[in-house]
């Protein structure tokens, strides 16, 4: 079976997703789960009154089955008690959709997990504290690639023309620098260890307007290459995943 051969029911939920959106208020809890390998990210919002889920909404970045499973679970969970809703499994969601392609059963069937995360968030309410701002680890390879892709100051911006540039978050100056360099290069990536929700809104707007790509909750572990930088190894703190990003220059 092809990974995109879906049942009519999946297609129906994909075409007409139910309960799309977000909820706001004191009585709202949210669960967010994601799998960057497959490219799915899901948020489920629940409003709980007297232990009953009275309203539920979702947002999904993902493939057809990711959207359909999220839509389906909002229908299954609405009106149920927290205890009943918690019992809904991945298998239940897939069954209600008349099945999913085998390859999608694991990675794009996150809706049950997202609902459980929202319920966990509901139970933990009042005990939350935002994660402390993380401090940067030492990056391996900085000495090795001095003059071969590592920059601390830029004497001649033209030497970075058309290069793929990585800029580390060092506050306002680094934001301005990223926006300026974006005029010389089609590819500037701004890397910050901060969560999106904690990142300065003004900086975010500025970078977005300049079309600088922002990677949140990310730290750089190592610089890789033969004679000059070719790739950087980065750590996605949210997913605790390490991956490689192709780049030519890094500005510290």
């Amino acid at each position, binding site marked *: 079976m092809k990974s995109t051969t879906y049942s009519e029911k999946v297609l129906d939920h994909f075409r007409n997703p139910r309960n799309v959106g977000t909820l706001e208020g004191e009585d709202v809890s949210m669960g967010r789960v994601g799998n960057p390998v497959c490219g*799915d990210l899901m948020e489920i919002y629940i409003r709980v009154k007297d232990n009953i889920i009275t309203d539920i909404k979702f947002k999904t970045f993902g493939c057809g089955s990711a959207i359909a499973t999220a839509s389906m679970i909002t229908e299954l969970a609405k009106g149920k008690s927290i205890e009943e809703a918690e019992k809904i499994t991945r298998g239940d969601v897939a069954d209600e959709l008349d099945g999913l392609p085998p390859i999608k059963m694991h990675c794009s069937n996150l809706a049950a997990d997202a609902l459980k995360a929202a319920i966990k968030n509901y139970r933990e309410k009042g005990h939350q504290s935002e994660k402390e701002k993380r401090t940067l680890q030492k990056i391996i390879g900085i000495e090795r690639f001095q003059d071969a892709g590592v920059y601390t100051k830029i004497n001649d911006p033209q030497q970075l023309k058309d290069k*793929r540039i990585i800029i580390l978050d060092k506050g306002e100056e680094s934001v301005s620098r990223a926006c300026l360099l974006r005029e010389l290069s089609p590819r500037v990536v701004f890397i910050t260890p901060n969560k999106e929700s904690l990142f300065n809104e003004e900086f975010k707007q500025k970078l977005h307007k300049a079309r600088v790509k922002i990677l949140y909750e990310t730290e750089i572990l190592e610089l890789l290459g033969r004679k000059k930088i*070719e790739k950087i190894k980065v750590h996605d703190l949210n997913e605790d995943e390490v991956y490689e990003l192709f780049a030519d220059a890094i500005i510290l």
Partner: protein
Amino acid sequence: MIYFDYQSSKPVDPRVIESMLPYFDKKFGNPSSLHKIGDEATEILDHSRQAVAKFINAKPEEIIFTSGATESNNLALIGFALRNKHKGNHIIISEIEHISLHNIAKYLQKNGFEITRVPVDFYGQIDLDALKDSITDKTILVSINYANNEVGTIQEIAEIGNLCRERGIAFHTDAVAAESQIHINVEDNKIDLMTLSSNDIYGPKGVGVLYIKKGLRLNPIIIGGGQEFGLRSGTENIPGIVGMKTAAEIMEKEMDSEIATLKVYQKKLIQGVLDNIPDSYLNGHPEKRLANNVHFRFDGIEGESLLLALKDKDISVSTGSACSSKTLEPSHTLIALGLVHEEAHGSLQLTMGRFNKPEDIDTLLNLLPGVVKKLRGLSPLYKES
């Protein structure tokens, strides 16, 4: 149905089908037979070899018919590596080769060869300095695609050819994505080995060619009765080979006018999308790209859901998203350009061809902004600014 996936598969041109038909039942001979009908088969095989040779400015004896591009790539790399390993065990490829070539290189790596993968820039062009730096005295072969099959970036083939010839290294290029869009001249570009596919010039599937420059030595990878100068055994697929011959003849005549039309479509698509869809980007090179290719990415949405939504509207497209691949890995080409996973997942590839009409472009440009907007409405990663 509107078809924008010519890179995956092309319809066979009706004129090609017509030319093939007699060779299934009337002229069904085996070129190895010595009787009349066998002679007839030998004659058309020779003619076909001449036609394909002319198509790329090669000599007929430099053309080996195979079962397709994957086999040609296997013969080029494995056949050359095995025959020439006494000269060295180092092979250079790029980070953005077709998946078949990547996997052949991995196979050779497991069998004692050293592989260097040269990086590309954000537009998908080979870093020529890195290529120069990678060459050692053990390097026997460089294999770089003529143009990339996903983002359509065209490489500096003549420069790579020159560099390899100067250093006495064989140069192979997979020209499958380029063969319908560029008049290829193997002499001028100093190409030693080149992969072609029949389907990519509107011929039948199951036929391809490996061009092997005269004097180059390879081991066969399919052993048998010694057909194709001993390099590719097995009774020749005469109907398929005739189909490729006709396809090459038509392509040679019609390529210039086709490219002119495709360039108009391409320009209209790129402008139409970038002007009317916010936070959309063109992947690949703005100028040095194949005329039949456009490749976009859209912030906040995932390619498979975009593909499905267009499928509902009877439009066939392709994506570099992992969710539509067998391995659930995002496109290695898009990652090599420097894109992060979520960007590679949000990509849309449109490849056009001989049978597209101007209305196809208009229909897509009318529908796409709404489809992207709807999917972004579902996405937690996109907030309208």
